């Protein structure tokens, strides 16, 4: 009898909880680009999980991408990592590879 779907006791419309934990505890990580003077650019990363040491991650970024960068404190966005140059795709790849975020949790902006 229990094979019949209708007799099962769970409510199909109830929240499974899976989605919620995903969307709630994790805001998007935004990677943006800005143009500086001339053809120089700046990559900014906001929304990295707070459990991760931004300092350490910045150090990694600087080493891997061979660029300079800083952490900026911002009222609205908390700690923001700034990197010199366009490293958006590489940052995304890094975050996915290191299992910090899935690809869909990282939003790349810009041109």
């Amino acid at each position, binding site marked *: 009898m229990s094979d019949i779907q209708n007799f099962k006791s769970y409510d199909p419309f109830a929240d499974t909880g899976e989605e919620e934990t995903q969307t709630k505890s994790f805001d998007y990580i935004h990677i943006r680009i*800005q*143009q500086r003077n001339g053809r120089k650019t*700046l990559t900014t990363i906001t929304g990295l999980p707070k459990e991760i040491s931004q300092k350490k991650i910045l150090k990694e970024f600087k080493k891997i991408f061979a660029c300079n960068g800083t952490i*900026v404190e911002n009222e609205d966005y908390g700690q923001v990592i700034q990197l010199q140059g366009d490293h958006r795709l590489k940052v995304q790849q890094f975050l996915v590879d290191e299992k910090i975020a899935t690809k869909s949790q990282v939003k790349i902006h*810009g041109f």
Partner: protein
Amino acid sequence: MKKKKKKKKDKSLDTAAAASETAEAQVEDPMAMFGEKKKKKKKKTATLEADTPRSESPAEVDSIASFGEKKKKKKKRPNLAEFEAQLKADGGIDDVVEEQAEEKPENTSEESWLDSDRDYTYDELLTRIFKILREKNPDLVGEKKRYTIVPPQVHREGSRKTVFFNLVEICKRMHRQPEHVIQFLFAELGTSGSIDGSQRLVIKGRFQQKQIENILKRYIMEYVTCKVCKSPETILEKDNRIFFLHCEACGAVKSVSTIKTGFKAQTEKRAAQRAAQ
């Protein structure tokens, strides 16, 4: 064809090419047993098998009077890449020829049941209906005319400004307020700008047409196409500070995320910024 030519050349070199000749002949022999059709396919494999002897192209053989074992090995490596490239080209051409050969009978067999007393098959009818549809009603065949926007006209003004000429026109085409589009553009580009007297958008920074186009595409994906039916015929309405996308094709309503500028790093010199304030 190519092969035969090569073969002739090889022959003229008689003694030296004898070794490769026999190799070729061996490959060619079984081909005689196959019919016309198989020949083509066999040829491809034959060129593959004939690998090394064939890569000793005539030009090279000229320079080497008697090719000893040693020299052969030396020449092998650079030639292999060349040979592979050639093979690829050969294969590509061969493929096309084969495809054509296969396609032809299909074309002629279309509606061939009319001449014979056999029944039509399902596949035949299927191709028939699609052919008719494509002729008379192309948008029903799934080849929907894709939503196209006029390509943005973008020009550089001075050394650090970009002018976007037909923004208003594009906005009209998308049924969107220019303000909303501009807001999105600026947020994505991480810059600012203004609309000048003749409805052109002046953007700070240097941007290429392709880059603007990419952002417009993303805008259309997020704020124009209906998420349910993919129709671009939608209206964006603001209700209680939240934007809703109303689809005119299927009636779906969906809220869309507000445009956030996000974090903006300081790119200007501090002195310049202070002066602007």
